[in-house]
């Protein structure tokens, strides 16, 4: 109890001082009681779900929350920036009563890959879902296989009754199911319409996670996600329990997706763009299926889907429509470019690249983004390079084949980026693709200008 009080007090002080930092109270409380997260994890009515993987954690967590809420369950979810151990602690702590019980059925916790072993040990989740594994900020995480190993360690430490929900289309994620002691629910895409015809993408994982042989694909959706088999050892895409088999566009941003859940068809509508968001939706449906939640709730939860914090989130100001979509690694960036290209309206595309620690200090990944194929089909009438690495981004755009006169470089501060968005000549539709800290800074600048009210995610 002392830990809870200390942490909450810190939270209030931190907020009074104007720090948004939702993790600080978690850190303080853990100092007072290192076992706090274990105790809190046991305080939920039903239990916790952890969602991890390189891309899609935040959006799929939000979709799971919406589905469970539609099923009449009380759900707690952490904010995207609070996905380390201290963040998970803070999230549960803020909802806890003094006896450490929590007035919620489920906690849906997106969790950083590196925190998974500890989170599994302390939270004792009932379910662990894995979105995908891509190269991500190599200077911080090291190589792709080290992230896979960390999550595998967590998966091995799950209680025997806990369930794994895995992306069948990702060879590394799917390979985690081979050692599972408990139930495994696989999800994937089965619609050939979504397959890529050609891709100049750098493949992060084209080799078999079991034997190292080059995988052979009959269908590839993007990056290394698809229908694969290893000619060396026979490792192949497991058959998904929940699969998206057909996708029909119903409007500029609405799609109807036909799901097969254990063979039974269900139609859902989704207003989030891009193939990557179909994966997020199918993951959420698979989690729901694993927990025994009915299809009505899945349909309802997905129907009301919207962009999570900075993930294709729409903000209006001064008659302009601003769409914010976080970019943090080549695969995610490629997917966001495709989603922007799906919107037929002319637009400004601003790319704000910071190289602070949380963004990854190494910006070489920008060169692995397939801008060459995408630049001419994006409907962009203006390109703006912003952030601490604005100059690098401008070079990147030039070498993508965009004429330098269409590329504007603004100063390295968020205010400079905001200024460019507010100018009269700026088109009414702006897509802003920032790295993590660039997004936080831009939001801060928008708030300070009074252009949007304080952002509260949820």
């Amino acid at each position, binding site marked *: 109890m002392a830990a809870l009080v200390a942490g909450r007090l810190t939270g209030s002080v931190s907020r009074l001082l104007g720090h948004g930092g939702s993790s600080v109270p978690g850190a303080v409380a853990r100092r007072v009681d290192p076992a706090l997260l274990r105790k809190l994890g046991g305080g939920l009515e039903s239990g916790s779900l952890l969602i991890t993987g390189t891309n899609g954690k935040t959006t799929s967590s939000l979709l799971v929350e919406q589905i469970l809420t539609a099923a009449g369950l009380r759900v707690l979810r952490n904010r995207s920036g609070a996905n380390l151990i201290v963040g998970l602690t803070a999230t549960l702590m803020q909802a806890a009563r003094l006896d450490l019980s929590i007035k919620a059925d489920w906690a849906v916790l997106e969790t950083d890959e590196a925190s998974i072993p500890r989170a599994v040990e302390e939270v004792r989740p009932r379910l662990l879902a894995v979105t995908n594994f891509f190269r991500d900020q190599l200077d911080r995480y090291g190589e792709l296989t080290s992230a896979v190993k960390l999550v595998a360690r967590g998966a091995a430490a799950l209680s025997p009754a806990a369930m794994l929900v895995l992306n069948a289309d990702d060879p590394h994620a799917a390979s985690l199911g081979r050692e599972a002691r408990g139930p495994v629910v696989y999800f994937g895409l089965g619609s050939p319409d979504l397959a890529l015809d050609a891709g100049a993408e750098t493949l992060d994982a084209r080799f078999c996670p079991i034997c190292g042989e080059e995988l052979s694909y009959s269908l590839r959706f993007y990056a290394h996600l698809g229908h694969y088999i290893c000619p060396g050892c026979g490792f192949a895409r497991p058959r998904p329990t929940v699969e998206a088999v057909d996708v029909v566009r119903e409007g500029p941003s609405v799609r109807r997706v036909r799901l097969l859940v254990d063979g039974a068809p269900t139609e859902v509508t989704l207003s989030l763009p891009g193939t990557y968001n179909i994966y997020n939706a199918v993951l959420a449906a698979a989690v729901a299926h694993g927990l025994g939640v009915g299809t009505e709730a899945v349909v309802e939860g997905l129907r009301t889907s919207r962009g999570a914090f900075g993930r294709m989130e729409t903000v209006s100001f001064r008659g302009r429509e601003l769409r914010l979509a976080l970019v943090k690694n080549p695969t995610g960036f490629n997917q966001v470019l495709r989603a922007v290209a799906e919107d037929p309206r002319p637009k400004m595309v601003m790319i704000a690249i910071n190289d602070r620690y949380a963004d990854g*200090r190494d910006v*070489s990944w920008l*060169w692995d983004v397939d801008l060459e194929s995408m630049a001419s089909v994006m409907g962009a009438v203006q390109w703006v390079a912003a952030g601490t690495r604005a100059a690098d981004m401008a070079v990147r755009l*030039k070498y993508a084949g965009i004429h330098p006169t269409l590329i504007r*470089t603004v100063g390295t501060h968020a205010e400079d980026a905001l200024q460019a968005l507010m100018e009269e000549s700026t088109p009414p539709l702006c897509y802003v693709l920032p790295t993590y800290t660039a997004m936080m800074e831009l939001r801060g600048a928008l708030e300070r200008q009074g252009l949007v009210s304080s952002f509260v995610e949820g």
Partner: protein
Amino acid sequence: MDGRRLVFAHLYPGHMNLYGDRGNVLALRRRAEWRGYDVDVLDVNPTDPLPLASIDLLFVGGGEDRHQELVVEDFVSRRQELVAAFQDGLPTLAVCGAYQLLGHRYQVADGRWLPGIAWFDLETRSGTDRAVGNVVIESRLDLSPKTLVGFENHGGRTFLAPGQEPLGRVIAGHGNNGQDHMEGAVREQVVGTYLHGSLLPKNPQLADWLLSRAIGFKTGNGELSPLEAEFELRAHAAMVERFTGGGRS
């Protein structure tokens, strides 16, 4: 042979593509295309033929340790033909892992030694930690600007034998080993370096150094028409300023 057509070979694009290596190939391609050349890039994977006689420039990048180990055998099996082509003057850029493979041998994280092709007189020992961060060096090549900027991320520490020419002197960052202030290696027209970032887009003078030698290698006259490079040099200068004092770090 058409003098306006260039063939670049990209060796092991599937295995060795970790740090934006695409960017180096793209920079070479664009800077040749903007000068009116047609460029073919030939992707060469393990066991694929490498028709060195018809190649004007060779690029090899860095890879995950596991992937680097997977190509060692193939690379060493091509030793004779590669060394012969290097001696003939084939312009080559080898970044990070590929740079290590051009030495006598390199040590992987678990302590084992793997062979290189001994083009450079150097060896790479496993370090206790990774050397990660931004780098600025002063190059020994005849370049303007003299500085090269990039990012390094390597576990190995590379030591040059006396007499082995480095690419340059470290102004900021670790370089080859963090001790002797040397970075990279050069012999004939082969450049090895730990710098990525990607390297060539922000260092257009080095891209042109390689390109001019590729064209010279092919036609005997490596003269290049000048290109405007406002964006490239601004990105270059921003990094020099930021990491050599004056700017924030």
